[in-house]
């Protein structure tokens, strides 16, 4: 327990009568990174604000270095950023950039509101990450709106911070952003959280209905759609004539539908080895909708497109 930087026990938060999440339990040591993933409105931002000491939990407890977050801020050296929309538009970029480290990080003199969204996001990130002696980095959708170079810079900076002993807590609705950075994942779904270690999500080998069932059971979600994609990687070419295997798993009262896409799947043969596995829930907008014909397949499967949640693992 001495190495634990942050721990949460049965953490819950609510806005008035509306419960955001409950029963979250996790801990983080220095140099570890936690990815918080979940669909829009799952409570990721709220959880980060609780960790940053800006909100109080309605139940449970959270401690950083053994004290409540608001008391630990100066001691731990927190870098928190919730997104470009939290930057005051009237402030000049160079002035804002100097607020965290006390030195200029950009010569840009334009006001923040006149910058592009990606530039604002980068400015906010560079500002908080320029703080010396950062022990805890808490970022909400940090890759949002960043271009390739900025994304690469962010990933390298976060890895460098982690290597120097900082703990990272990163939230994203797109788990692909967090791949390779996080040691732990907290899946926030339907007001509950499930903690998964990264290696648990690196399954290589057959994905069987039994494994899918175990995953679904751990996630404890209703209306979860599991979409297993056949590898579309190099060498396999574009999958044509996909066979949609529609399988319904009975998990109590929850209706769970499993979609299996594979080029050579045979009806009834549920033992397959995809290199990529996507878990989607709610009304889904599949990433592969862009493929010709995919939208029709999803429509045929009875989905309305509005939001998506996916998790990928495997080779």
């Amino acid at each position, binding site marked *: 327990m001495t190495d634990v930087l942050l721990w949460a026990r049965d953490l819950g938060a609510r*806005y008035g009568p509306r419960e955001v999440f409950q029963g979250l339990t996790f801990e983080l040591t220095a140099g570890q990174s936690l990815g918080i993933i979940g669909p829009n409105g799952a409570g990721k*931002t*709220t959880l980060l*604000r609780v960790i*940053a*000491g*800006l*909100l*109080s939990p309605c139940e449970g407890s959270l401690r950083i270095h053994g004290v409540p977050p*608001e008391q630990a*801020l*100066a*001691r731990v*050296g*927190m*870098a*928190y*950023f*919730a*997104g470009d*929309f*939290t*930057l*005051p538009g*009237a*402030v000049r970029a160079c*002035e*804002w950039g*100097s*607020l*965290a480290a006390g030195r200029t990080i950009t010569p840009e003199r334009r006001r923040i509101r006149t910058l592009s969204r990606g530039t604002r996001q980068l400015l906010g990130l560079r*500002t*908080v990450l320029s*703080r010396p002696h950062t022990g805890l980095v*808490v970022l909400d959708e940090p890759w949002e709106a960043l271009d390739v170079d900025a994304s690469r810079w962010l990933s390298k900076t976060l890895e460098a911070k982690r290597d120097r002993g900082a703990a990272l807590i990163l939230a994203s609705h797109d788990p692909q952003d967090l791949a390779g950075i996080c040691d732990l994942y907290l899946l926030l779904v339907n007001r509950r959280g499930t903690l998964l270690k990264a290696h648990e999500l690196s399954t290589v080998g057959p994905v069987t209905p039994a494994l899918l069932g175990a995953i679904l059971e751990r996630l404890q979600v209703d209306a979860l759609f599991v979409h297993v994609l056949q590898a579309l990687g190099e060498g396999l070419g574009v999958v044509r004539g996909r066979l949609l295997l529609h399988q319904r798993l009975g998990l109590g009262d929850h209706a769970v539908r499993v979609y299996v896409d594979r080029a050579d799947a045979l009806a009834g043969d549920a033992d397959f080895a995809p290199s990529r596995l996507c878990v989607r829930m709610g009304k889904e907008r599949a990433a592969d909708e862009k493929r010709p014909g995919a939208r029709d397949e999803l429509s045929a499967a009875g989905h309305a497109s509005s939001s998506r949640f996916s998790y990928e693992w495997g080779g």
Partner: protein
Amino acid sequence: MGFVYALRYFYVVAIVPRFFVGGFVIAVAAAAVRLTSDPTAATDALTPVVLLQMFVAPSGFQLPARRGYYDLLLTTGPPRWQIALAHATASTAPGVVAWLSISLLELAASHGANSTGLAAGTCVAVASVSAMSWACGVFASRAASGVGWLLLMSIRPVARLASPLLLIGMTSLTTPLPFLVLLAALIASGVAFTHIVLGETRLEAAQ
């Protein structure tokens, strides 16, 4: 250190817009011209300063905080009480400096004979307006707070009893009402201060 950092933060974020500071500068300059020719005109010179303070001091805390504008400050580590103190200081300082400047100009212009700017009534008026306006601004917008003052002063029976503008230049306060107004302003400031120290900072986008 935390207080100084918080002051700098509020300066950079410009919780008091530059044009309001410009308004005070103009008021002081106009007062200097007026007092040079008529050292007894301090009441007229101070009235715009007190009026301006009604709109400047409520610089706002909860609304910008809920938009995340103060996230960097609130998570950097200064104790919340220092942040609250710095916010109150940054919000009220331009008006207070303008008031003191005009008071000193009056003393200089009258060779120490007149001190309307430092009279008890003026001090109570400036303190009441500054404290009450700042406190209102912590919870509401600048416009709401300013309009509240204007409404208060436009209702004649209320204005006669509690208008801070009528207190300017009064050397002796015969009724306890001004002190009650000041007490109410200080209590409101205490509530606002406590809110900043203990209150939550929800994000509009996350509710």
